Structures are given as structure tokens and as C-alpha cells.
């Protein structure tokens, strides 16, 4: 069984600051990792994903994430946040075997102060 842990429930930064949202996973086999964003009252939207190759993956709106097998992590980063980045961010993992479901972390609420 795969599990996902997002250790920070809430993160507050100022506009223009950099931010890192942390994600750690637990699973013994091969996995796919992704990040999704949810603005208030909306469904989730895909940001980026990793499954092989370069451990740093680029996503939409300047977001990137770095996979680390040794740390079992897939942290999300942005160099300079905008107030519109305020949302809840979910890390997700699924086993690479066919038909497996996507399991989400608890989410990190990011507040960007203008």
C-alpha cells in the first residue's frame, strides 16, 4: 500500500518569496508521482508529474518538483510566488502497475500575502 505524507498543513509566504511544499511517500515498488492544485471551490487541476528520467520536472506557472528516491520525497517548489498561487496543493502517488488508483496526501494550504 502506498501512502503520501504532506507534513505542512499550512504555509504562508509573501508575494515574490520562494516556497517549497514538502511531500514524502512510502511504497516499496515503482511509482508515479504528481502534484495537483485546488483553488477554493474548484476541482483539482494537474500541475506536474514524474515517472522516470530527470528527477527535476517542470510544471505549469513556474512550478517544479524534485524526486529523491533516497529521501522518498517529491517536493514542490516555486522561485517567486504570486498571490494567485494561494490554493491547496496535493501530492499524489500511484503504483506503476496497471489499474492502480491515485492516492493523495492531506494537502498543504498555501497563502500568499500580497
Amino acid at each position: 500500500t502506498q501512502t503520501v505524507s504532506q507534513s505542512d498543513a499550512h504555509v504562508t509566504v509573501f508575494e515574490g518569496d520562494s516556497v517549497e511544499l514538502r511531500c514524502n511517500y512510502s511504497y516499496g515498488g515503482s511509482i508515479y508521482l504528481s502534484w495537483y492544485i485546488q483553488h477554493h471551490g474548484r476541482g483539482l487541476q494537474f500541475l506536474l508529474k514524474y515517472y522516470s528520467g530527470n528527477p527535476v520536472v517542470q510544471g505549469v506557472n513556474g512550478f517544479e518538483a524534485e524526486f529523491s528516491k533516497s529521501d522518498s520525497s517529491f517536493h514542490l517548489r516555486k522561485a517567486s510566488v504570486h498571490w494567485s498561487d494561494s490554493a491547496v496543493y496535493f501530492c499524489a502517488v500511484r503504483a506503476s502497475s496497471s489499474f492502480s488508483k491515485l492516492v493523495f496526501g492531506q494537502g498543504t494550504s498555501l497563502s500568499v500575502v500580497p
Partner: protein
Amino acid sequence: NAGVIQTPRHKVTGKGQEATLWCEPISGHSAVFWYRQTIVQGLEFLTYFRNQAPIDDSGMPKERFSAQMPNQSHSTLKIQSTQPQDSAVYLCASSGRDWGGPDTLYFGAGTRLSVL
């Protein structure tokens, strides 16, 4: 492309009543997922279909919840004898492939169910 469409956006039911939630996946998508979202539990997987066939319903409360996908264009989640603890946002998502790879899920806006 209108995206994944969920109806209704909000539903209020009395305790013990039945609730049916509808989902129209993106045209051509072959995998459909249902999740439940609450403040306390976060995002909980309920069930999913691939090419209309039920694949995994391990997250479904067995006694009162059921899901169907009678055709490619819609799926329903039915909750019988609703209870206050069923109050949540129910999210439907679809995926464009046969869910055999690192595929992206496209989510609807959700149905907020309130059980009084």
C-alpha cells in the same frame, strides 16, 4: 472541451433520503474515478471504472454506496439512506488513457452534498 461535468453542484438531503450524483467525463476518456473530500479525512478514493467496467471499489462504504457507469458518457454515484457523516464534496475525475501509465486526472468541480 467542457471538461468533466458534475451535477448538481450542491445537493441538500434529509437524513435517510437517497442522493444521486452525476458525472460526465471528458469525451473519449476511458477511466472514471470518484473521490470524496472532507476537511477531516482529506481526499478519499471511492471507486473507479475503466472502459465502463468497475475496477476497484475498495473505498466504497459497502452498505449504502453504489456506483455505475452505464455508458461512456456518464457515471453515477448513489448514496442510499444518507447520513450526516456522508456530507462532503464528491469529486469525479477522468483520464484519457487506459490508466496504464503516469496519466493525468481531470477533475470536475465537485458536488457538495449536505445531509441535514
